C-alpha cells in the first residue's frame, strides 16, 4: 500500500503529520452543491476513487444526467459530456464504440434512467454495451421538486402523489436490476443501500466489478445505489438513512443479480482493501 502523500492533490504538509485521507485526484476542489444528508456526494467520491484506483483519469469520459447531479462534471477532473434527460446510455454507447480504449460511464438518477430513459437503458444493456452505469435510485424526482417517480414506493407521498402513491393508479416500482438481469448483455448488476460504512465498502466492491465488466470486455455493468433524498422525502438525514434500511430495501432487495465478471486475480494497484487507495 502506498502512502497517500504520493498522490496528494493539495500541497504536501511540511510538518510531520501523516495524511490519512484526501480527496481523490479525479475530483476537483469545487464544493459539492448537494443538500445535507444527500448520498449523491458519497457516490461522487466513490466514482472519483474508482477512477484513481484503476488509473483511468486520462481515458475516462463521464456522461452526466439531467437531475440533481446535472453538474457532476464540475466535480470531476476527467472529460465529461452532459447528456439530455435520460439519454446518457445512448451518448455513452457512441463514445465507447467510437474508441473502445476509453472508459465510459453514465451517472443517472431514477427519473433519468427508469422513466424518460428506460428505452435507452434497456437497449444499451441488451446490446451488452461496454459501458458502466452508476444508478442513483432515491425513488423521487429530486431536482424538479420531489415529484413521484416510477421508482417511488407504494404509499410514498410526493408533490404529485399527495395522498401517497397508489399502485392501482400509477403502478408498482420498477426494479431495474431485476429487469435487466434477464438480458444476456448484462455482465454485472448489483444493488446496494448506502446506509453504513460497511455498505459503502460493499458498493466499492460492486463498482470494481461493474468497471471490470467494461475494461475486460465482458459486457454492460450497473450498480444501483439506494440513495437518500432527505429534502424531498421530508426527513432528516439520519431518518432518511433509517428509512432506507427499514422500508426501501423491502421493495428493493440489495444484492448481486448478475455477475459474469471473474473474481479479481491480481487486484489493481491500491485495490487490496475494500476501503480503496486512501486507507
Amino acid at each position, binding site marked *: 500500500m502506498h502512502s497517500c502523500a504520493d498522490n496528494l492533490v493539495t500541497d504536501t504538509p511540511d510538518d510531520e503529520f501523516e495524511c490519512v485521507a484526501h480527496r481523490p485526484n479525479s475530483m476537483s476542489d469545487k464544493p459539492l452543491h448537494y443538500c445535507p444528508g444527500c448520498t449523491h456526494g458519497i457516490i461522487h467520491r466513490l466514482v472519483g476513487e474508482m477512477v484513481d484506483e484503476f488509473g483511468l483519469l486520462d481515458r475516462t469520459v463521464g456522461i452526466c444526467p439531467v437531475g440533481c447531479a446535472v453538474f457532476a462534471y464540475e466535480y*470531476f477532473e476527467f*472529460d465529461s*459530456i452532459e*447528456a*439530455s434527460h435520460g439519454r446518457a446510455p445512448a451518448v455513452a454507447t457512441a*463514445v465507447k464504440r467510437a474508441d473502445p480504449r476509453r472508459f465510459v460511464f453514465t451517472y443517472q438518477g431514477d427519473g433519468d434512467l427508469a422513466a424518460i430513459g428506460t428505452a*435507452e437503458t434497456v437497449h444499451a444493456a441488451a446490446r451488452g454495451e461496454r459501458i458502466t452505469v452508476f444508478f442513483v435510485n432515491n425513488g423521487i424526482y429530486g431536482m424538479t421538486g420531489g415529484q413521484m417517480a416510477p421508482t417511488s414506493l407504494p404509499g410514498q407521498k410526493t408533490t404529485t402523489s399527495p395522498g401517497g402513491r397508489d399502485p392501482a393508479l400509477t403502478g408498482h416500482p420498477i426494479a431495474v436490476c431485476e429487469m435487466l438481469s434477464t438480458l444476456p448483455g448484462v455482465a454485472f448488476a448489483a444493488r446496494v443501500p448506502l446506509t453504513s460504512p460497511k455498505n459503502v465498502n460493499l458498493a466499492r466492491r460492486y463498482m470494481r466489478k461493474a468497471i471490470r465488466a467494461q475494461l475486460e470486455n465482458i459486457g454492460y455493468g450497473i450498480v444501483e445505489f439506494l440513495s437518500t433524498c432527505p429534502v424531498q422525502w421530508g426527513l432528516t438525514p439520519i431518518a432518511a438513512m433509517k428509512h432506507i434500511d427499514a422500508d426501501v430495501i423491502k421493495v428493493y432487495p440489495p444484492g448481486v443479480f448478475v455477475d459474469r465478471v471473474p473474481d479479481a486475480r491480481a487486484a489493481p494497484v491500491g485495490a487490496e482493501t475494500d476501503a480503496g487507495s486512501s486507507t
Partner: protein
Amino acid sequence: MIVTTRQPVSTSERAVRTPAPAKRLVKGNEALALGAVAAGAECFFGYPITPQNEVPEILSYWMPKLGRVFLQAESEVASINMVYGAAAAGHRAMTSSSSPGISLMMEGLSYIAGARLPCVIANVMRGGPGLGNIAPSQGDYFQAVKGGGHGDYRCIVLAPWNVQEMYELPALAFDLAERYRMPAFVLTDAVLGSMLEPARVPLEFPPLVRREQDWTACGRGNRAHKNVVHSLYLDPEVLSAKCEELQATYRRAACEVRFDERLIDDAQVVVVAFGISARLALSAVSALRRRGEKFGLLRPITLFPFPSERLSALAKRVRGMMVFELNSGQMVEDVRLAANGACPVEFFGKMGGVLPPPEELVEVFSKRFAR
C-alpha cells in the same frame, strides 16, 4: 452556373471530387450513403424509416468493412443522442432519417446546437403531417431552416437536386459543420432518394483523416485540463453571452451561400425552387423560354445560409419572382423577406406527395405573370 460565395478549402470536399470514376447508374440514397463514407464519416447511427432505408443498409456494409462504426439504434431519439456523443468525443458522426424520425430528434438536435457540436443529419423528406405518406415532400423546410427544436439555434442546410449532389453534399455538410461547429442538414426528399441516375460515385474510399480538436471530450490523454461538453448555463448573463456567440457564428456562416442560376441574365421573372422542385421548375422555365417568355431559375443549394443578398439584388430588376415548393409555402417567406417588396413574389405549391407535371407549372407560372 453554380455560384459559391466562398471557395471550398477542406480536404474532404476535394476528396469526393477526385479522382472522378466513370459514370454509373446510382440510386439517390446509395449516393448519399457513399457520400457520407467518402466524406470521412466515422460513425453512423440510424433507425429504419422509408424512404431512406438504403442509407443505413448500405452503411451497415461499408462502415464495419472500413473499420468505422455503424449502429442501428432503438429509436431516432437514441440515434441523435448517439450522434451527440460521438461528435462530443470528436468524431465525424451522422444519422439519416425521414420526416417523422427527424421530428423525434429535435430535442437532441437542440442540445447539439447548444453544445456547438458538428454533425450531419440527412432528412429524406416524406409527406406529413403525422404519419403522412412516403411520397416526396418539402414540408420540413421550416423545421430544418428555422430551428425545429427549442431555443435560438440554426443549422447549415444543404439541398441536393440530383444524384451527383446527393453524393457530394455530405462532404460539404461535414466541412461546414466543423468550420462553424454547428449541425448540418442534407435536406432531400423521397424522389431524389429513390431515383436512379448516372453519377460519378466511387466504390473505393481514401483512408480516414482524423483531425484533433482542442475542445472534445475524448478522454484527457496528456491534456493538462479536462474538457466538458455541455449546454447548461444557469447564469442568465452567461447564457446570454453564449447565445450571442452562437448568433455571431451564424452570421459568419452567411458567407457560405451557394446557389445555382439558369437563364437568369435577361430573365424578367425568376423562379425560385430547391431540390427536386428545382428540377421540375427548370423544365417549365425551358418550356417557357421556347414560348418566348423570359423566365429564369435560381436554385438555392444552401437553404441556410440563404442567398438573400442575391435575391434582393435580382428583385430590384425583375418583374417578379415565382416560388415553387412541395409544401404550403415555407421558403417563400425567406424569398419575400429578401425581395422586401421590390417585386411581387408569387407562390405555387403541392402537398401530400403530388408532383405537378411541368406543363402544369408552365401554365401556372405564365398566368401569374401575364401582362
